[in-house]
């Protein structure tokens, strides 16, 4: 899951420039709210989940590690 998410961000938003990009990189410094909406759309389709609107806060998308936790929560319906 980690690689899939990282690859999407690299390809869509970073022109495949992976320098300094890790699972801890603060995405809020790279992405704007529209980019996050694209990311949410991708996550919902890729992992067949629905992310509830009350999870739509940048803290939940701060870095790839946090996104993984969010996807797990959505999968478990918690």
């Amino acid at each position, binding site marked *: 899951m980690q690689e899939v998410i990282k690859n999407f961000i690299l390809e869509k938003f970073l022109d495949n420039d992976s320098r300094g990009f890790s699972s801890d990189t603060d995405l*809020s410094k790279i992405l*704007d*709210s*529209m980019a*996050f*909406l*694209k990311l949410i*759309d991708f996550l919902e389709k890729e992992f067949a989940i629905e992310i*509830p*609107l*009350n999870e*739509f*806060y*940048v*803290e939940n998308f701060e870095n790839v590690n946090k996104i993984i936790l969010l996807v797990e929560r959505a999968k478990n319906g918690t």
Partner: protein
Amino acid sequence: MEHKQIQFDVAILGSGFGGSVLAMILAKQGAKVVIIDAKSHPRFAIGESTVPLTSQFFSLLSRKYEIPELANFGLNSPAGIQKIVGNCCGIKRIFGFTYHQFDKNYNSNNDIQFGNVWRDENHLFRQEVDTHLAKIAVNYGAVLKEDTPVISVEINEQVKITANNGEEICAKYIVDGSGYRSLLAEKFTLRDATPKPKHHSRCIFTHMQGVLPFEKNENLSIPWCQGTLHHLFESGWIWVIPFGNHPQATNNLTSVGLTLDSKKFPDLNLSGEEEFQSILQKIPIVARQFAKATAVRPWIKTGRLQYSSHATVGHRYCLLPHAAGFVDALFSRGFSSTLETIDVIAETLLESLAEDDFSMQRFEHIDALQHKILDFTDRIVHCAFISWANFDLWNAWMRVWAIGVGTTESNLGSYLFMGKRSKWQPVHDPITSRFEDPGFRSLFEDCETFIIDFKNNKISATEASTQLFQRIANYDFQMTLPEQVCGHEWAMKNALCRDLFLGKPDLHKRWKAKQPDPHLV
């Protein structure tokens, strides 16, 4: 009997919607709060239709002041409301507008729907919702005193409130959320003798059973009954707000109201029921919707709806929006205006309490905000009433309003998502909201000038609507939407697109190809 004096930080008059939301925020943040109400819950209230801005502000307050329950009324609604309040509230998928002329047949080509892709909004059954909000305030530690009419308020170096049972309540500050009959407005003679609003209307309203769905328009996305329906006619409108419009619903009532320009429709001393029927007789297609409907409570008939206050804050007190003034329920601006103001009041009061400084200057921006909100609501409603003389003019003015709310929602949505990391900056000198688009004031004011010129017989309706559409077409539309929502900007600006519902892929395809609604070509 001697009563013990209790010292509170903030006393709030009125445990309705605004009073309870402010009380829970202050109590949660550690203030000692008392809410005093002359009556008790549950009780009938109108103002039922929410808009995305309402939900966004609820979620903003929930997050900012750490009150998870409020998110249920915010972006977690309608499911959140169903979970905690029950199934007494309705859903709202669209603003629906039908247009009528007394001497002509109804033309369904003049129907307009404006809605949202993301989620449904709500028709709040206020007696249950307000009761629940007061309970949340109590759960966070606010002291609620119901059935406690206040007989006097003295404000010196503190606030001393005397109730009719002899009880004395002391507080550092008092907020009046008691609406039209505001105690502080009366005590300090704050009401303008001549209300500021230019708009002039009166209202007749009740809850009904047996209201039928309005004729389906096959060309539009959503059945009327799944939204807030507005029947518009020259100098008046009827609202139809069903609560029983989803599968889980347990409440088959519908809120119904008639608002009339009191200069065009002077009060002839008919009863509410008689006056409602007299208007229905002039619009047979609408009368059919009410053929089997009966009021479940007596119709309430108001005098002039508009009132305003020359000051909304003073030494150790402030008024909530509906204690300060009111214009008209059109465009459902009440909830979002109240919540936006409550946010600013709460923020200011918490700082004042922390520093024990209640000097007037700290609160002046609240007064400015309330005047601004009332003025904008007045202007947008006033021009809407004028525009109903001609469908093209209404079609254009409706888009000025829709562009304003749409872009504000988009900005607030981005701010809600990004929080402190948002690049959003409050717009300098907004006309309606800190979150509006930078260009909105000039679009609004330019278009308003043409509507007023039309009213003053300086230009024809056609000239005015042509001017409006030119300005709308040139508006720098900054609203950001996901890639899959194509052509929304075009749809909002195009006179031949009546289905502004954001959510059907076939619509988006048509919008992207810049094709008007097929039934209008």
